């Protein structure tokens, strides 16, 4: 029966990983949202066929190959070509690029669900296309995209666990290394599970507040 001091040691060990988990998740989220939104705008509001094709190919390639495969390519594959990324950098870049493919689709669905009349009314009053996108379409598309984006954010927090496979020192990395040295398997993994819950549940709750707020405006 493990005593309390064992638990404290475990918790301290895992908390060292928590900051990396948070940093990787936040940085990947920012990359995923910004890049995904940019790709979505290019895909929806330009008429250049090669741009469309390139973005479609990007989205399919990143969404349909497991995250772990992408991470191995970034971390081990690039290293064998002479470009060494730190495990944390590789984790952030990898999850960020995959996230962009995911959010690009979510944003696009938001824009596509807007009735054509919304654009027409904006153009008819003399707004330029850029003003129409910024002031009329994006605020509405964001509201529709919000549930999808929040699912993605929670998924992302959980997905940071795969980056332990490239030795990024996050929660699961420390959990596994402690298990190999102490064999407190159940306690260590249960504590890790608790930490993930502590991250995800408030995130979910925050998103619900946002959704309620904007949901009211949408009627």
């Amino acid at each position, binding site marked *: 029966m493990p005593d309390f001091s064992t638990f404290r040691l475990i918790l301290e060990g895992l908390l060292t990983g928590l900051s990396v988990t948070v940093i990787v998740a936040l940085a990947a989220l920012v990359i995923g949202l910004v890049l995904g939104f940019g790709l979505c705008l290019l895909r929806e509001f330009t008429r250049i066929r090669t741009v469309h094709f390139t973005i479609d190919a990007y989205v399919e390639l990143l969404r349909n190959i497991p995250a772990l495969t992408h991470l191995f390519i970034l971390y081990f594959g690039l290293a064998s070509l002479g470009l060494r990324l730190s495990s944390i950098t590789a984790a952030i870049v990898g999850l960020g690029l995959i996230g962009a493919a995911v959010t690009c689709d979510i944003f696009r669905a938001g824009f596509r669900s807007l*009735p054509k009349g919304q654009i027409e009314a904006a153009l008819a009053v*003399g*707004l330029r296309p850029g003003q129409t996108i910024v002031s009329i379409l994006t605020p509405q598309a964001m509201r529709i995209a919000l549930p999808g984006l929040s699912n993605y954010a929670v998924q992302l927090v959980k997905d940071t666990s795969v980056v332990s496979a490239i030795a990024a020192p996050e929660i699961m990395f420390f959990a596994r290394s402690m298990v190999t040295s102490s064999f407190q398997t159940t306690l260590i993994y249960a504590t890790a599970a608790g930490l993930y819950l502590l991250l995800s549940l408030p995130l979910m709750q925050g998103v619900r507040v946002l959704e309620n707020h904007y949901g009211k405006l949408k009627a």
Partner: protein
Amino acid sequence: MDALLSVAGLRKSYGPVEVLKGIDFSVKAGEKIALIGPSGSGKSTCLRCMNFLETPTAGEIRLDGERIGMRDGRLMSDRQLAPQRAEMGMVFQLFNLWPHLSVAENVAIAVRKVRGLPAKEARDLALEMLAKVHMAHRANASPLELSGGQQQRVAIARALAQKPKLMLFDEPTSALDPELVREVLTVIEELADEGRTMLLVTHEIAFARDVADRVMFLDGGVIVEEGPASAVINTPREERTRSFLKQIRH
């Protein structure tokens, strides 16, 4: 007097289907023209060509002498078209208010962003326009809290705030419940009395007769008959006009 709006040889095709087969007309400043005709006759398409929401396949549209939508023989982009579109206020069948903005902001946003007025003046102007359509008391409401008739009146205020040379109405009462039609028609009548120039697509024949100076009857993509409103509606010369009016009257 010169025409404010002149349309010559206007054609529009969707693939192999020609919807407008050569439309010519002109509108003098202060004139109110009603476009009537069976559904599919091309009247909405014709109206939407005026501000290039539909790009004509051929023909020439001029507002105050300025060629709309074409510059140096090339089609203008949406960006280039923006100042020209701002000269025409458009009211849509489905209102198309922006649900994320308040009623006042729906009216004020273009005043700020297109005409460059400061926020305070834009809001004052918005309130003034809302008062014209008897909606000033709902300035801070969301469009989603309004009835269809109220939404359409706000949409009219939005178009008025552009200080347009020409008002375009695309079946403004077709999507309304019958009991809400009157309030919108009353507002349009009040604008007509102010001497505004209007081009109006409508199914409200009695309204067209009362408000419009001239009526154009479109069928099959051509103007079949046009003339003073009461003459076209009360004593149509063409058989197609007669049978359309007969169908619509009961």
